[in-house]
């Protein structure tokens, strides 16, 4: 998982698949970032093709942490299938979702 820090914002590029297996790694890395003080996070789905319910759980956990700790996570660059997953589960209503990374970064400006 690629992590970039642009200004105050930490941009995380998600792997191609966030399924039951890889969700644990993704969660661990997010926890590391959050423990490290990251409060402005952009999750870039540009390279991501699949998110399972285990993956959704990870993002939900990050979201809840941010809500508790005055932080914010913005999702961006989602492909249609992934958007479907978020929409079907209703999670698209809970998250701030931007079309591109730039739009996402702009939300923190």
């Amino acid at each position, binding site marked *: 998982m690629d992590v970039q820090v642009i200004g105050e914002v930490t941009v995380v590029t998600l792997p191609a698949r966030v399924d039951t297996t890889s969700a644990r790694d993704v969660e661990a890395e997010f926890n590391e970032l959050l423990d490290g003080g990251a409060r402005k996070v952009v999750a870039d789905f540009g390279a991501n093709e699949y998110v399972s319910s285990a993956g959704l*759980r990870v993002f*939900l956990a990050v979201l809840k942490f941010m809500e508790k700790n005055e932080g914010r996570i913005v999702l961006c660059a989602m492909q249609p299938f992934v958007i479907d997953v978020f929409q079907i589960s*209703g*999670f698209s209503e*809970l998250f701030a979702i931007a079309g591109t990374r730039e739009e996402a970064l702009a939300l923190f400006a």
Partner: protein
Amino acid sequence: MLRSLPIAWRITVLVLLGASLVLGAVSAYSYWSARDFLEQQKRAEIRATAQATANRIETVGVAVEKIVQGLAFSVEDTDPGLRRARVLLRHTVASNEEVFGSGIGYEPSIYGRLAPYAYQPSDIYGSPEVQGANPNGKIVVTDLGRGGRVYQAGDWFQLPVQMRRAVWTEPYYDEGGGNIVMATYAVPVHLGNDPVPVSAVVGGDVSLFWLTRLLEGLDLGDTGYAFLISQTGAFIAHPNQDFILNESIFSVAEARDDPQLRAIGRSMIAGKAGYVAFDGVMSLTPDERSWLAYRPVPSTGWSLGIVFPDREISADVVALSRIQWGIALLGIVALLLVALFIAASITRPLRALDAATRTLAQGALDAPLPQARGRDEIAHLTTSFGQMRDSLRAYIDELRETTAARERIESELRIAASIQMSLVPRTFPPYPQRADLELNALLEPAREVGGDFYDFFLLDNDHLCLAIADVSGKGVPAALLMAVTRSFLRSFARESDSPGEVLATLNEELAADNEECMFVTMFLAVVDLRSGAVTYASAGHNRPFVIGSACGVTQLPRVRGVALGAKAGIVYDEGLLTLAPGDVLYLYTDGVSEAMNARDEVYGEERLGEDLGRLCAGSCDDVLQGVLDVLSAHAAGVEQWDDITMVAFRYLGPPTSGGDGVV
């Protein structure tokens, strides 16, 4: 056979075999060369003994000849009277020990029977019988003609008279004279003007007993012996007393029919020397294999033979070789011990390793291995073996751990699966007495339980509640959350006939204290069985399909609603739908729509809709089984990752109207 022996023994046997061959060859060679050498030495020794003995006898013979010739010259020259002749004879015998006796035989026709004779019975050359009778060694002077004895008939008198020269007589027994076996050297003399050519015969005797004793005194080993034969081949001296004068070398040859012995005899009496193999002359039958060295005694015409058995020549060699073989045997025993020691020290680590392997083979992986000493092959083997043992131990430990872990997981999976399966209704048809509905459901759990469930129950006689849900996560936590969700659902659904309210209440319960951020997607519908009207709400769940009785397939529109437990305070919109008799409401989870194949391609809602259209003619069960078959074909052997859960509900029309929904 060698292969079945321990290596130490094999090495030892081979070393010993080799060493024995070499030792054997060396011993055999040295045996033969030593035997050859010893034989030659013995031969030379026998020859020398024969020569020396012949010379000794010759010396005596020549001495006697000279003495007698001197005496004869004296007699012929001085013609002594009887008194003087007796003095001469006594003097001759006294001063010459070789001469046993000496006498003068006068021609009876001129001097009457007169034969003075002197002899020395106790002389070392004398006879044993007489010796005992006259221990003083005095010389006895007698007359051979006394008492009318016819001495002139004896060879010693007749031969010189007839041949008119000096002769050695054949050995004879001198009865009345020395009374022993003797040979006489006799010289004819002529006195004065006697009318006969020979007036008297002067003689000197050699005792054959002395010769026998001389020959017996020779050192010829245990069974070697010497013999002496006369000019005619008669035995003069021989260890077998019966042979003396009674047998000749030729009579023995005759008795044995032995031409070789006859030839030897001829060669001997011809005065030749020789060394030949022959069978001995101890008896009248062939003796053992022996060697004969013979030498002539020229003065008397006799021949001396020394017989030495082959066995005794070999005896020295045998003794020598016995020592050699003894040394060789000791050497081999020493070699055996050394070879055994070396072989044992070579194979000791091997045997230790073997013992360790046996212990190890019985599963004692911690058994100590022998210490690898040095850098030879066995040390390498031991080291490699130790490494193998360590890897094996590590492997077994790892295997044990993974097995334990897998068993734990498996048991968790079993628990989760049994929780899941115990919570869904599984009796179909569920309402066999009702003619207004057909209902079937299917839950195909993944190996690792996904937490799917479905539920249905009659709220009252006319209202049926249908639910399908997918709990996030897997395994026991998912199964537990599923159990909780189902209990809440069952209790809340009875308090309200609005699916949206029920979901909202459920969400509040599940969102509270949801540290794990688990959530549940759920589709909930309440069917009015009188009219076919359906009220539904969805908590982030996949949109169900409606299969029309004419095989038209439509997917329900989206209604807003977030997955249960994600966040509190969510409002769930409701949708409305009216089923015509025969229509099927098809609910499913993402285990169906997101089933993967080997190329990571999802089955997809689109294809699901198409396949449902093809399956519309069948019963609810046919629809579910049909989709399952299609999924199985799609996965083509790829392991099912998520639970596959489906519910098919066919509305058959109000019970009183007797609708035409039956397909």
